[in-house]
């Protein structure tokens, strides 16, 4: 099957004067339509830089990224196929939502990138009402400011904002890392449902292995800018081959191996 997203030997080097820093080195992987692909690594491993290059926020210094068969970058120029096709949800909704904007403005802002006719159609009051109801918000919330919401609600706002343009591909960069466990469960459930309903493809970036195991079909493990292991999530968790993956897994708290009686 033809992949939706294909990274071939992507590298990213940051330069400042004579200093050079290689953030990402020869990263290759592909994601099929409808798949959830996990990118796991510790802080500084380069996983978020990969996300930025896919979204057009940072040009790669080498390699090609193809989306639906077409290259995303021509040199340092990002060539989008359709505005709003790729979207992102960031880790911390406290800092990713503009505190001076009302929720309605925040959610509809991405529409500004769309052509006039499409903008009017996608920004209709009816469509907005349906979308916020779907992510678990109420119509009266639209007129409020981000600080009036809990962390979980703010992340629902961020999800609605990402979905307003009807994207096919969403990068989820640590979407639940700042949330309490029970709130995380709600957000992960919502993301799974939305994926099924809208036939979305996810790149799920996280440092949390339990979340990756639960959410992803396939995954890649990053260490110091390189991918050290790629494969199906089930396979990697059952039989990790790279020493670094093994270290990560052995650091995982052992709750998962015990049988717990939780039926209510």
């Amino acid at each position, binding site marked *: 099957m033809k992949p939706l997203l294909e990274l071939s030997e992507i590298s990213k080097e940051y330069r400042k004067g004579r200093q050079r820093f290689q953030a990402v080195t020869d990263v290759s992987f592909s994601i099929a339509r409808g798949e959830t692909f996990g990118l796991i690594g*510790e*802080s500084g491993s380069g996983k978020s830089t990969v996300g930025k290059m896919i979204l057009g926020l940072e040009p790669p210094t080498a390699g090609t990224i193809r989306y639906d068969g077409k290259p995303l970058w021509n040199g340092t120029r990002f060539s989008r196929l359709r505005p709003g096709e790729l979207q992102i949800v960031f880790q911390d909704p406290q800092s990713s939502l503009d505190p001076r904007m009302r929720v309605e403005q925040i959610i509809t802002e991405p529409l500004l990138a769309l052509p006039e006719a499409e903008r009017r159609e996608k920004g209709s009051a009816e469509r907005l009402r349906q979308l916020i109801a779907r992510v678990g918000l109420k119509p009266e919330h639209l007129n409020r400011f981000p600080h009036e919401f*809990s*962390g979980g609600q703010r992340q629902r706002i961020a999800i609605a904002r990402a979905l307003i343009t009807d994207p096919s591909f969403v990068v989820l960069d640590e979407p639940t890392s700042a949330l*309490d*466990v*029970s*709130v*995380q*469960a*709600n957000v*992960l*459930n919502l993301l*799974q449902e939305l994926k099924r309903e809208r036939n979305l493809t996810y790149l799920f970036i996280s*440092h949390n*292995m*339990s*979340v990756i*195991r*639960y*959410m*992803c079909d396939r995954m890649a493990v990053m260490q110091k800018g390189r991918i050290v292991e790629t494969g199906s*999530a*089930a396979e990697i968790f059952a039989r990790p081959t790279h020493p670094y993956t093994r*270290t*990560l897994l*052995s*650091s*995982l*708290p*052992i*709750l*998962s191996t*015990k*049988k*717990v*009686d*939780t*039926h*209510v």
Partner: protein
Amino acid sequence: MNMLLEIKNLSVSFSSMQEKILALRNVSFSIQKGEIVGIVGESGSGKSVTALSILGLLEKNATIESGSIFYKGTDLITLERKALQSLRGKEIGMVFQEPMTALHPTMRIGAQLAEVIRRHRRVSWREARRLAVESLAEVHIRDPELVARKYPFELSGGMRQRVVIALAMSSPPELLIADEPTTALDVTIQHEILKLMQELAIHRGTAVMLITHDLGVVSQVCRRVVVMYAGEVVETGTTDEVLRHPRHPYTRALIGALPDLAEPGQPLMAIPGDPPDLRRRPPGCAFAPRCSRALPVCFEDHPLLELAAGESFTHYVSCWGGKTG
């Protein structure tokens, strides 16, 4: 009995904008010498307020409504400020989530440690400096001489947290209060810091009160667990009892919400609704409005923390339905 810390019916309120918020309600638990006890709960459950109460570091708008905090038999609440201050840092150490806030940004690591050592021990600067390097080695810092000459900003997050632990352990304390000590750290480093705390508990007999939202961390290092919800202790027992045979519906829901145990593709167990508004506590159980097993009595009367049915003398639960399981 080797009881080190015993909290009895502690209630703490905060006043804000002419309103009174009961942040802790009748909290009771104890910690024995050399024991690692996990205090688990989500944001707003009162875990950090409990820690600050013990340390005497509550904000000015906080009032201790009732209860006592016995440390080696002395009630810390009635203790004079001076006496508490000398206890804090010397016998009771603390480690917080963000190590940078605990370190002086423009002072070299060695000097910071030496200063703390001299505060609690009558030694020369030279000797204090030597002890400082020694304490860095004890928290497995590879090149302690080099690190002692560095400033906090020159160190990684994991290294900084080790330094903070070295600071807290330098006296050495009998009780270490650690509030989310590994939350800001990568998993591999988290693992090492937890191992380090376990070592300190075993070799030095330091008791650790480990505040965390992470049940995985609890299962890794704690002997006993205290589960808090809306400022109350809802369940406590050995780690095995609480995590493998949870009796309180909130504990069960919390474990069910973890992706660790879920089948991929199956929805996670979610808890409906939100935690209660602490300004308007329901008369009955605080969890009742969100509980799938709530009975009429749960909304009217507050349950007491009582022994769960069974063989155990360590497993307590505060639930009308959970005692019989």
